[in-house]
């Protein structure tokens, strides 16, 4: 897929909603089309975090492993989700593993390329930061809900 054919994909993606076509064009310069088969690792904990992914189609599990314990899936992501923000913060390393559960098509955006463009144009940087902050906030809230153990029997107001 050529760069010019990636531009409409970025433009239409919810994550970039409202971003000017000029900026989308600029970001397309950091984008590449990518696919993973079921079982492929997108990245592993500790590896350099040099990109993020706009998932177009498929399913990816975010996993955490600890010695002597079974690997836990913390979250799955699917069509139109955005995966990865470790490229934004030093030391630019993945905190978790990500595994494709099925054939997954994505657009990968190169972190170093993006950081360069954001450093050159703080308005673009701010736009991207706002979007990633929203994703991080949603993720934090979802984790809080998971911690609440919604379906347990804490104070027995409900048996469901």
């Amino acid at each position: 897929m050529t760069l010019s054919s990636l531009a409409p994909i970025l433009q239409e993606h919810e994550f970039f909603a409202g971003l000017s076509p000029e900026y989308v064009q600029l970001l397309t310069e950091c984008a590449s089309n990518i696919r993973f088969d079921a079982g492929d690792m997108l990245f592993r904990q500790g590896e350099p975090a040099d990109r993020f992914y706009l998932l177009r189609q498929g399913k990816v599990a975010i996993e955490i492993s600890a010695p002597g314990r079974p690997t836990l899936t913390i979250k799955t992501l699917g069509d139109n989700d955005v995966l990865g923000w470790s490229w934004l913060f030093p030391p630019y390393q993945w905190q978790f593993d990500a595994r494709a559960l099925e054939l997954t098509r994505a657009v990968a955006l190169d972190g170093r390329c993006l950081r360069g463009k954001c450093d050159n144009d703080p308005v673009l940087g701010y736009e991207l930061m706002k979007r990633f902050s929203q994703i991080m906030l949603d993720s934090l809230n979802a984790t809080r809900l998971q911690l609440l153990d919604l379906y347990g029997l804490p104070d027995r107001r409900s048996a469901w």
Partner: protein
Amino acid sequence: MVNEFSTPVVPTIEPVMQPSIEPMLPRLYQVQRTHKETHETFTLELTPEDGQPLVFTPGQFNMLYAFGMGECAISISGDPADSSKLMHTTRIVGTVTTALSKLRPGDVLGIRGPFGRGWSMDLAEGNDVVFVAGGIGLAPLRPAICHVLNHREKYGKVVLLLGTRTPQDIVFRRDLQKWRSRLDVEVLVTVDRAESGWQGNVGVVTGLIRRAPFDRLNTIAMICGPEIMMQFTVMELLKRGVPAEKIYVTMERNMKCAIGFCGHCQLGPNFLCKDGPVFRYDEIKFWFEQREF
């Protein structure tokens, strides 16, 4: 000009199916089959000793009496179109539910009901329908799902979102598979926690709402699960643009008489046993958000 989206939804009070005989007197039912749904939930299939089928609307409940142990409120989980058997799906939490879990085919129990106001199936006609269930909250929704699928042409898109704690806590697996195999229902299941062999979704059920295919303005949402899960689900639906008057929740409180006498089930000005257990969200919003109620 009438905006189709702003047409007010008429009040939800529907004729309530009243218990056919003396409401405090249990009728005898015999257990025909038991089915273990998960390690802590089971379904009883029952038939009346007097041969009179029990007619109910989806969302209504019965009082189940385990002789010598006591009574508890359990929603009807069967298909309303199948009057040959009465179904109840129960999670084991204490004295009565433990006693019910020990019943075997041929055993007899007492049933009072059906009680309460169920889901507004008629008002949902012509709309997309989104069911959101948390854990065993799928049980009271099951009759409504069966009703919609029995009258599929009367409804728009049908979406079922189910969240449970782990893959082992998923109830009605056979139904989920059957519904999934239909091309006219979207079934999305997610669990809070899973080991890596699980190929399904992991994440809270509210996360499914964003990607569920329904028309936000022409949708009726029916939610059943722990109150905290329902609160977050309502927030997510409102965020997506579903109007508050198109969201229904089912509430749970301790019940004794189930006919509006004893006051045990009071929620603000409402008695859950007769005004509920299903409420339109905007009718009980205030009480829903009060911690101490």
